[in-house]
């Protein structure tokens, strides 16, 4: 485990997390996360060889939904419930910045 995060690592992580940080935030978060990771170092002292990781308290997904389409109705103004409150909509679709 690495106990410290330098500014370059924090910037890289922020890019992966789609967060834009100011220089001041990079310094602050690097320091605070290093402190937390320093504390987490204690996990190194635990003998975990052969221990099956526990990802949740129940044995996985207990049931699944049938793969069925459910009709959605437009409201009086013609909006679909899924897109009605979206920030930007075009032809019943979510409008985002072009990727090409």
């Amino acid at each position: 485990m690495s106990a410290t995060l330098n500014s370059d690592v924090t910037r890289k992580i922020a890019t992966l997390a789609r967060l834009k940080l100011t220089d001041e935030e990079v310094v602050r978060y690097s320091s605070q996360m290093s402190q937390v990771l320093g504390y987490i170092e204690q996990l190194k002292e635990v003998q975990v060889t052969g221990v099956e990781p526990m990802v949740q308290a129940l044995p996985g997904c207990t049931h699944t939904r049938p793969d069925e389409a459910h009709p959605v109705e437009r409201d009086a103004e013609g909006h679909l419930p899924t897109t009605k409150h979206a920030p930007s909509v075009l032809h019943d679709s979510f409008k985002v910045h072009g990727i090409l």
Partner: protein
Amino acid sequence: MRHLSIQELHQDYNNGVTTPSQVVEGYLGSIRKSHHNAYISVLEKRVREQAIRADLELKKTGKVPSDRLPLFGVPMAYKDLLTVKGERTTAASKMLENYIPPYTATCIARLEEAGALGLGKVNLDEFAMGGSNENSAFGPVDHPTHAGFTPGGSSGGSATAVGADLCHASLGSDTGGSIRLPAHFCGIVGFKPSYGRISRHGVIAFASSLDQVGPMTKSVYDAALLTEVMAGEDIKDSAMIAGQSPKFTQDLFKQGIDLRGVRVGVPKEYWGDGLDPDMSRVLRERLKQIKEAGATLVEVSLPHTKYSVSVYYLVAVSEASSNLSRMDGMRFGVRPAQADMASSLEEQYQISRSLFGSEVKRRILLGTFALSSGYYDAYYKRACQVRRLIAQDFDSVFTKCDVLVGAISATPAFKRTEKEQDPLKLYLNDILTIPANLAGLPALSLPVGTIRSEKLPIGLHVIAPRERDESLLQFAQSLETLFQNASQLGRK
């Protein structure tokens, strides 16, 4: 007019002392006058309509239809992490400041189908991340009885709303202690059921392997009744306890306070030297009363408790970084005007996500780090391995005892901003609540008195084996009666 239990409220309805509309108007008036900042949205129009329908029902039948509507005319507050169709649901975040969900959370739908009235949506730490309710984009919540103190978090609004009589009962959610810590700080009952007991459909996800909804009330009976109504399978939550949910209230009053033969585990890690001495003294007095009532105290140890915060701050943040990736300003929520002038989709995401508060960003960063290539085995995987050891500690002690009792946290409520500058210090406040989430166990905070001249409330932590919610509630109710009787005798 305030009622300590749903039964009292129903008696007053039956005796014609009051009506659902009168009770609702009383609460709406109190909410308007309150300076606690407990509510983010008051659903005045909606709740008045619900109350009028209840008035008509009561007029028609002359008595509360409690068989059909067990929560008839009970005014409730919902943590603003839970959706109500057509009503703003913010998660106390600027990201969702204008979010109007197209569906209602299953837990709320079930409460209202059973007759509950929804007064409004209450404040919390943004996306339920925090322990003092100081991380809300809508401002901090004040303690119900001690101005300037935190009510705890993240369900701080839910706790203050009950403690300050701004609703009859409320819903919170508990990922690492977010129901129990504020219940302890505010002197109310806070119950986190077993993982998978209550559907999370309509609960804005924080850490899906840990999140659980639960009631915050003035009595154990109310907590049991609300849980009974909400519990049970829901096709819309893929991780739920299978089968019929027990009738939690059925045996509550039959048992009385007979604690003879109950093996009460006292884990040394929950009674350590780090506890506030005044709080420790009162908790030990309660322990003595439990023993005098016939229970057998069993000293036990949960040796991996000390690792719980480390495990939690890897598991919870990793899941949060994934869950919150959907908050991108594209399909719902707020997209700042500058985002439409971004030069790329990536930048558009980044501008929208700049609306997250500081604590949320910190946790997303930490989670992204823990899951990133090269660090996954050392952090996330190891945390999940230690999580199993924490769960196995409980399996082992529950062969020797039926329930566990201890402290909820090391201190009573503290003044706001005392711990704000030091995230790690605030995280450590959760060391005794997190293990029950990691292992998926039911756990409850029971108010057991106040400490010091300032009369700060404190709670006793009760934890039971997985899926033994019923046993936990029965035991907690026995303790509630035992301590109430003792305090009444003491006053004579």
